[in-house]
């Protein structure tokens, strides 16, 4: 991890539907095929048209995988963009906009007539390619290579549209030459990387969870659309035919989760994908899975609550919700991937664990992870297997047969001569309803017994930075790469990041990991430090400081670095316990 930020941070901001998305897709593609590392994330309002949405793109010769608050180049597409982004500008920010579109215009803004050029070329939509041309020019990307990508990007469109977009790109390039002359400091020279970045893959968190689910053998998804979890449903729906997936949009989340449990019962491997409010409706189903001992995979993409909250923004506010969801006592597992790549493996693993232990398993993500992406090596799926654990039944089959580890062989109807009987009432080994106090006690213990093996299988925290750390930066879920980059920037040999991608149950050595540090700083994208509480409750190790953020945005690397610096030098910007 580099300690100095050599990357270039480009932010494009405009109304919803104005082309931010197109510029982002095209520009990141061009950057990647030109063998630069690229990262992108977006923040947007809960509306279909209008408002102010922005995308940040970071480019570098080394891996870039986290957002920064700093903006090197801002492209403003409408009047609302300036007030929306101004707080992130510095004296060094190059601000590009079109005088006529911005309303207020100051001399610090470089006027690029995107729409005038587009009009000249015959269609206002070409403004996007002009903007891409300007940015590629500033990044010193070879013009012909960019033009080639334009052609690929618009494959299927009429030839004249492709040519016009290429012309628009070239016009953008010449604007960038003017900017360079005026500002003198361009182009930035990003050293070429020797990595084969062009060979790498780029996908966002939503696609990664979806792909990981397929890798786990997912063949049934039932859900109700809710930001920011819908991307996973959409992704799986597009793969339905190829991967034998049944993708059903349920009438509500209650139906969705009950369908998923029914699907597992009949031999499918089912997923629900939802966000906090939708998950609140699903809770009865989590409890049902607990009682039926049904496998179940729940993808919970967090957004700020309570209630409707900030529908399109990010927060790590639902750990407690997932942890305590569902009435009654039964085992569960909660994964919280720390990167797009981990999202793939967590989703894959969630299916394996759910199937093996016959329990609900959560994949806890958030809007930030869903909507972020960067280049990384191809997932190696060459040794991946899906080995369903269900068994063929014989005629004496008992679904809830008592076993030493609490796991009863799970049959499915239609495979074997036995009958597969499950009941949400307390039941005996044959699933007959009972109120016998001894059977009740046995069954409670049978279900909870699985915790022993689950704990033994738990994923330990990932340690980066100093191996002999005196101070530990503790985080979970989507903040990992942000915290790791901030840690590297601090350049201290007593500092390490402990990232938990499994937050429940915690690995048995968790207390030992924590005790190795004299100072524990827990970093969370929420207001109350839910994970810090869980750590203290589970391990008894006190947390020294909490760095929390709950404005609906993810942490920025530079922002977090500064907050850490203050805490580490004894300032009081952390929330002292």
């Amino acid at each position, binding site marked *: 991890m580099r300690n100095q930020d050599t990357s270039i941070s480009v932010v494009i901001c405009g109304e919803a539907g104005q082309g931010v998305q197109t510029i982002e897709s095209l520009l990141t593609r061009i950057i990647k095929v030109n063998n630069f590392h690229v990262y992108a994330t977006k923040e947007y309002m809960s509306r279909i048209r209008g408002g102010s949405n922005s995308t940040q793109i970071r480019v570098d010769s080394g891996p870039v995988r986290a957002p920064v608050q700093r903006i090197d180049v801002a492209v403003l597409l409408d009047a609302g963009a300036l007030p929306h982004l101004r707080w992130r500008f510095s004296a060094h920010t190059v601000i590009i906009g079109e005088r006529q579109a911005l309303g207020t215009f100051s001399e610090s803004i470089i006027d690029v007539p995107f729409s005038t050029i587009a009009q000249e070329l015959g269609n206002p939509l070409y403004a996007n390619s002009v903007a891409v041309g300007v940015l590629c020019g500033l990044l010193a990307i070879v013009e012909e290579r960019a033009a080639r990508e334009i052609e690929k990007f618009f494959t299927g469109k009429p030839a004249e549209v492709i040519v016009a977009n290429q012309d628009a790109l070239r016009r953008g390039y010449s604007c960038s030459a003017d900017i360079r002359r005026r500002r003198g400091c361009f182009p930035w020279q990003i050293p070429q990387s020797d990595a084969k970045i062009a060979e790498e*893959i780029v996908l966002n968190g939503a696609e990664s969870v979806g792909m990981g689910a397929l890798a786990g053998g997912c063949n*049934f998804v039932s859900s109700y659309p809710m930001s920011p979890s819908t991307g996973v449903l959409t992704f799986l729906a597009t*793969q339905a035919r190829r991967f034998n997936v049944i993708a059903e949009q349920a009438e509500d989340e209650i139906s969705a989760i009950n*369908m998923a449990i029914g699907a597992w019962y009949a*031999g499918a491997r089912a997923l629900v994908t939802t966000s906090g409010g939708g998950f609140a409706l699903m809770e009865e189903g989590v409890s049902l899975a607990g009682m039926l001992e049904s496998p179940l995979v729940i993808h919970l993409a967090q957004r700020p609550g309570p209630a409707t909250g900030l529908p399109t923004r990010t927060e790590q506010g639902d750990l407690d919700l997932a942890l305590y969801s569902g009435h009654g006592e039964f085992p569960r597992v909660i994964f919280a991937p720390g990167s797009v790549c981990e999202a793939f493996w967590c989703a894959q693993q969630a299916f394996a664990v759910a199937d093996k232990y016959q329990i609900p398993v959560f994949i806890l993500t958030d809007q930030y992870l869903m909507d972020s992406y960067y280049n990384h090596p191809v997932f190696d*799926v060459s040794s991946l297997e899906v080995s369903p654990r269900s068994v063929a039944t014989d005629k004496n089959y008992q679904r809830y047969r008592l076993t030493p580890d609490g796991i009863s062989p799970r049959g*499915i*109807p239609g495979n074997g001569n036995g*009958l597969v009987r499950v009941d949400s009432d307390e039941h005996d080994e044959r699933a007959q*309803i009972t109120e016998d106090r001894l059977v009740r006690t046995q069954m409670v213990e049978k279900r909870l017994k699985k915790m022993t093996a689950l704990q033994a299988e738990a994923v330990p925290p990932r340690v980066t930075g100093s191996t002999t750390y005196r101070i530990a930066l503790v985080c979970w879920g989507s903040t990992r790469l942000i915290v790791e980059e901030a840690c590297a920037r601090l350049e201290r040999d007593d500092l390490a990041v402990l990232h938990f991608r499994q937050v429940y149950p915690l690995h048995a050595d968790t207390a030992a990991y924590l005790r190795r540090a004299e100072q524990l700083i827990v970093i969370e994208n929420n207001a109350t430090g839910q994970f810090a509480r869980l750590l203290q409750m589970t391990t008894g190790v006190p947390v020294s400081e909490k760095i929390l953020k709950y404005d609906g945005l993810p942490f920025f690397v530079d922002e977090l670095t500064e907050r850490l610096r203050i805490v580490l030098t004894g300032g009081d910007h952390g929330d002292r316990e």
Partner: protein
Amino acid sequence: MATENSFDPGKIDIAWCPGCGNFGILRVLKDSLSELQLSPQDVVIVSGIGQAAKLPQYIKAHMFNGLHGRALPPATAIKAVNPRLTVIAASGDGDMYGEGGNHFMHTIRRNPAITNLVHNNMVYGLTKGQASPTSARGFKTPVQVEGTISEPFNPLAVAIALDASFVARVFIGDMAQTKSVLKQAIQHRGYALVDILQPCVTFNKINTFQWFREHTYRLEDSYDPENRAAAFQRAIETEKLPLGIIYRCAQKKTFNENLAVYAEDDTPLWQRPFVRERLAELVQTRR
């Protein structure tokens, strides 16, 4: 009277009140399944919660006894995941029309090939005598002390309005007709609703066996269940309730027939292999 039936679980403790209409429904269902030459391994009975929802506990077959109001979503999913199973969702009027009302509507829209039995006794039994969605106006209970004020839910009219593919009402006092309708419902290709009128001998002193006998009639032999407007006319009759297959719309595609996974064959999902190569290809598309 009792004959050998492969769905008979043998000696078991049944939690229903003596004289309850549920006994008749249990008997007719077991006989219907048996007469249709099905084996217990072919049949999944899904239920919600309530006295009616204990039905699968008393039948030898696969059983999914889920949550209150939630029989239809898992039943739909089970049939979708394994089209070769015969799936029956059975529960009471409170479960299907109250707690599960939303699922009732949307299951009809999906048209999965499942049989939906609703034990309709117009009262809540297990929670001790409150009004159900089908209770008549003025029906007095410990909660509706001045009498029920809401319009009773009309499941048949709702189902026909949604163009359900099979809509029937029977009275458990007429076991012969009940069995005949039930067998047709189970064999029907698509969603089949059978609203079964039954008395609650403990909590409903109004809608008794006698009351149902006096307030129902069998649809005449000449009745054409494929005429939707006429069916709706019958469904909204209140003086005397018609019994039989009120509406049928056979040519509708089922939920499974609309699923891409069954475009070529009906192999259950659990028998389909995981193809790693396809995943590797998919990963490569993100380059």
